[in-house]
């Protein structure tokens, strides 16, 4: 069964055609990298998967079920979690408080008071982050004290902890140094090793994408022009295809 199957998907924004006839199948627990130039339509594709945009035409199935996603909340109910650029973290709250915000663990005290169970939240969070191989100075430090890479990692961990089965990441490596990026790359590798999460990542660094993804899809002018297993392609091939796209075609 495919986690995601797109058939002849198109998306128009008024006169602008962002996606034309995209057909794409992403297997269960596969890690797929989406690459392509600015304005190629990568984010649009991801936003359709996350329920943010509705396609102009074409069909989509999630986990084998045909669906028409109506909203981000709807997608979330189906296990599709998106980590946005702004991350939606509260920098004044600690790591574990952010992790559980909106679905706090509580326990009853004296039969009537519903209290936060900070110990349980803290320990569950520590266990989960350890399982992901994520190292932090402390769970009590505020998000504001963490580096950009660590924050991004926490945002991802929160989405997957929420029970998401499909994780969508739009440029999680943007504006990050080598060390910071490595935190995220390690996290993705750890999901990949465990094979319990389908991940779609948009990134610009081809070498990194080939390194952490099972498969890479090149999007050009709103269509998928290359779709190969990582080990069957190379940075050179991607470069060649991208550059040839700019050659003036004789027909026009």
């Amino acid at each position, binding site marked *: 069964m495919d986690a995601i199957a797109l058939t002849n998907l198109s998306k128009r924004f008024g006169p602008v055609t962002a996606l034309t006839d995209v057909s794409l199948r992403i297997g269960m627990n596969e890690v797929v990298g989406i690459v392509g130039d600015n304005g190629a339509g990568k984010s649009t594709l991801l936003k359709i998967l996350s329920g943010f945009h509705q396609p102009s035409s074409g069909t989509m199935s999630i986990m084998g079920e045909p669906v028409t996603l109506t909203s981000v909340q709807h997608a979330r109910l189906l296990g599709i979690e998106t980590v946005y650029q*702004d991350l939606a973290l*509260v920098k*004044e709250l600690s790591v574990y408080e952010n992790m559980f*915000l*909106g679905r706090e663990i509580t326990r009853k005290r004296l039969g009537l008071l519903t209290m*936060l169970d900070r110990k349980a939240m803290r320990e569950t969070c520590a266990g989960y982050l350890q399982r992901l191989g994520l*190292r932090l*100075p402390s769970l009590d430090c*505020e998000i504001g*004290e963490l580096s950009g890479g660590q924050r991004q990692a926490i945002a991802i961990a929160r989405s997957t902890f929420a029970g998401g089965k499909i994780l969508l990441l739009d440029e999680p490596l943007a504006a990050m140094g080598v060390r910071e990026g490595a935190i995220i790359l390690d996290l993705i590798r750890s999901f990949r090793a465990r094979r319990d999460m389908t991940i779609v990542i948009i990134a610009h660094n081809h070498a990194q994408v080939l390194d952490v993804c099972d498969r890479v899809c090149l999007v050009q002018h709103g269509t998928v022009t290359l779709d190969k297993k990582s080990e069957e392609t190379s940075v050179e091939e991607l470069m060649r295809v991208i550059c040839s796209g700019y050659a003036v075609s004789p027909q026009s």
Partner: protein
Amino acid sequence: MQELTRSGSRVAPSAAKRRLWNQSAITSYGAAVPLAVLIVVLALASPYFLTLVNIRNILLQSAILGVLAFGLTVALIAEEIDLSIGAVEGLTAVFAAILCIQLGVPWPVGALLAVLAGFLIGYANGVMTTVLDIPSFIVTLGTLGIASGVSLRLTDGNSISGFPAGYVVIGRGSLFGVPLSTIALFVLFLIIWFLLRWTRWGLRLYATGGNAAAAAELGLSPARLKTLALAISGACAGIAGVLISARLNSANGSLGQFDLLDAIAAVVIGGTSLTGGRGSILGTLFGVLIMVIIRNGLDLLGVSPFWQTAAVGAMILIAAILHKFAARLGS
């Protein structure tokens, strides 16, 4: 998978360590240091400072400022400000006086209605802030004006005196030598501390103040949380109104008009951030004690009230600078 789950139940060694020295600890305990210094210095400077009479005096003065400052802390954590607290304190005092003295309402009912009036005014502040999307600074500035105008009109500039004896006990009575108003402050402290630290609501209030957009994205309701925060601030002002009128055994239209600045000073000294998401009720308690003890100490040392006002202003600035500095140290 089995193996992963097993190790997953263990706590990650590096992350499991608790850190004592972090931002929220600085917020909560930062003001304890200057408070301790202040107490030691004044104890050495004046033999009268640590006498029972003077301590009782400090406790009495802390009660009203404390109640106001607690409410303001809740509002500030939600990234809202309540400038109307002093005026609402005055209005609810007058309201209680009219009910209990002029209309002959039983005093417990009068006191409760006064607190309820404070809550409703605060709730109205909250609704105007969140539903109409007007900054709370403006909304509560408006309420401040209305509340003080109404209390002056209701009293025609005079005092209403002569509360029932039971009512006066709230402000003047004591239990085992501890003033009842101090006990009230302590109970309120426990309630708000519990709400902020140990309930879902409290955590979400911090989240709302820190990043309302993120809170909304996670399905929390920032508008409702902010409204309730301002309502709590109003209710606290109502409690302060009851305490002050009970202590004075009278109410007049200008009651509480100078309390806003002292409350803001106490809250800021206590480490609560004006930009939301950060604040502690314990810090505010320390801030209140610092404010009251400074005034008390300067009185004992015979410093003129004019200099006292300047000293309070200087304290606010010093506190703000120290908190900024401590925050850098913490991260």
